[in-house]
């Protein structure tokens, strides 16, 4: 073996850190007062230069070891040009979001929840599973006025043949209401009084408290552990809730880029969190899958799909819930907006 090969083997090939690029961009933005200098020169993008004003903290120094793909399927090569090809459209979309982001009147999150129920429907021998979907939107103004918008979408039998043999029923009764093959109407419900941002089911935060969340990963982690304990989670399960609540900081709450960066770093430092590499979300959007167990000793697993370029959460999937089925939460929108709350119509 010659010396150059020895040298190459000595250095090895570092694992691809899917968030390094975004972090470096954040550093450059920090060094240039939040604008990448060359973006002023990109046609039409001059004012939107705070591209993906997203996520990472200037001053972050360490890497994310647990967030490196552990298997050998890292695909970065000297010309990993997926970013070259898709970079621009993603950049544009992200820039638009970032431009609209800081100044809106309402914090708005629009999500599509899909549930594949474990329970079989139909008659004996002709059973099938159902997939139900709900469009859910939440708005909260800076003063704490809040609205929820909900629309039930059409329920879908997963095995159409079995459903036909069952007589093609259009409705199914379940404990809390029913499922229907027809979509429901969109409803907009205003909330009474001043609302806050919920962390899990427990603690409620004001916008000021959200803004005051620590930007240091360890401090943020400890703050979230307190929040988990405040929501009556049994002590044994506190750690298992940590990835989920950290993930919520990435898209459910109007956190600062610094806090989002800290949330990513805190996630990266958790031994149970794994990056599984490139994938697509349920709507076909490309992203990186990050997985973690949700309940110790049970097969329940959480799977975040994160946009490599903007670091936004695209979807959160939960699999392996005993006797329940698989749940998918697709994030359609997350950010500040000036659009008035309206009942959900379409995805």
């Amino acid at each position, binding site marked *: 073996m010659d*010396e150059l090969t020895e*040298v190459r083997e000595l250095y090895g090939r570092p694992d*691809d850190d899917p968030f390094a690029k975004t972090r*470096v961009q954040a550093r450059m933005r920090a060094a240039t007062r939040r604008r990448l*200098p060359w973006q002023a020169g990109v046609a039409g993008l001059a004012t939107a230069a705070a591209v993906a004003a997203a996520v990472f903290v200037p001053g972050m120094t360490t*890497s994310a*070891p647990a967030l490196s793909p552990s298997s050998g399927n890292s695909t970065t090569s000297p*010309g990993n040009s*997926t970013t070259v090809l898709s970079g621009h459209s993603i950049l544009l979309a992200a820039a638009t979001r970032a431009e609209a982001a800081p100044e809106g009147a309402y914090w708005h999150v629009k999500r599509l929840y899909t549930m594949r129920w474990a329970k079989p429907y139909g008659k004996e021998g002709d059973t099938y599973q159902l997939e139900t979907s709900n469009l859910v939107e939440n708005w909260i103004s800076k003063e704490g006025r809040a609205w929820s918008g909900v629309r039930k979408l059409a329920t879908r039998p997963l095995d159409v043949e079995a459903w036909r043999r069952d007589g093609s029923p259009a409705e199914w009764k379940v404990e809390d209401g029913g499922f229907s093959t027809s979509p429901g109407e969109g409803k907009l419900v205003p909330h009474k009084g001043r609302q806050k941002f919920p962390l899990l089911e427990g603690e409620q935060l004001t916008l000021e408290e959200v803004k005051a969340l620590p930007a240091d990963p360890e401090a943020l982690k400890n703050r979230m552990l307190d929040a988990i304990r405040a929501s009556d989670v049994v002590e044994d399960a506190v750690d298992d809730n940590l990835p989920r609540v950290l993930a919520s900081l990435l898209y459910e709450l109007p956190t600062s880029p610094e806090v989002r960066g800290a949330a990513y770093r805190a996630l990266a430092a958790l031994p149970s969190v794994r990056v599984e590499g490139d994938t697509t979300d349920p709507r076909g959007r490309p992203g990186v899958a990050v997985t973690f167990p949700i309940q110790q000793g049970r097969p329940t697993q959480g799977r975040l799909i994160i946009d490599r370029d903007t670091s936004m959460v695209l979807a959160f999937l939960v699999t392996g819930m005993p006797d329940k089925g698989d749940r998918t939460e697709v994030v359609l929108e997350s950010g500040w907006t000036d659009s008035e709350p309206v009942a959900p119509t379409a995805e």
Partner: protein
Amino acid sequence: MTTTPVERPPDQSLDDFSAVFDAYFSEIHRYVVQRLGPGPAEDVVAEAFLTAFRKRARYDPAKAGVRTWLYGIVTNLIHKHRRTEVRALRAVDRHGPPADAPSHEERVAAQVSAESLRPALAEAIARLGRGERDVLLLTALAGLSHEEIAAALGISYGTVGSRLSRARAKIRAALGGANPMEANHG
């Protein structure tokens, strides 16, 4: 989805600097991670692209491709972190962080770089002169040719050759008889 990096015409590349960043980020970043570890790499890579943007008017496409030019810029910036690089190389034969590493950043750098390194070879690389190490690693890790290294570092073709020969000879010596290819030279 093609994954071939194409060296675009330089004038076009520098006009659209975000495309330059997208095209070369992964490669440049990996090279710096290899030399300095992931923590310092982020600072160095950010500085390299900002420097490249600032100096774009001085870029001469007749002398070097954009990729080569970026390696030249980043190599200069790596020099500021020589202590980190040498510390990481010397940490190879220790298990755990070097005792005198004060900062978390350097500890992480040392640990990560050390994972796959072997001590004798690492020590030999740590002992190389700065110029020799640059030429060796631009050759072995970045895969640049002699011409490209000459353009990147602003040195002559002949100097690239002599530095690489010296670096290889020192490594050969450090590895002693461990190299089977050299066994019959006694």
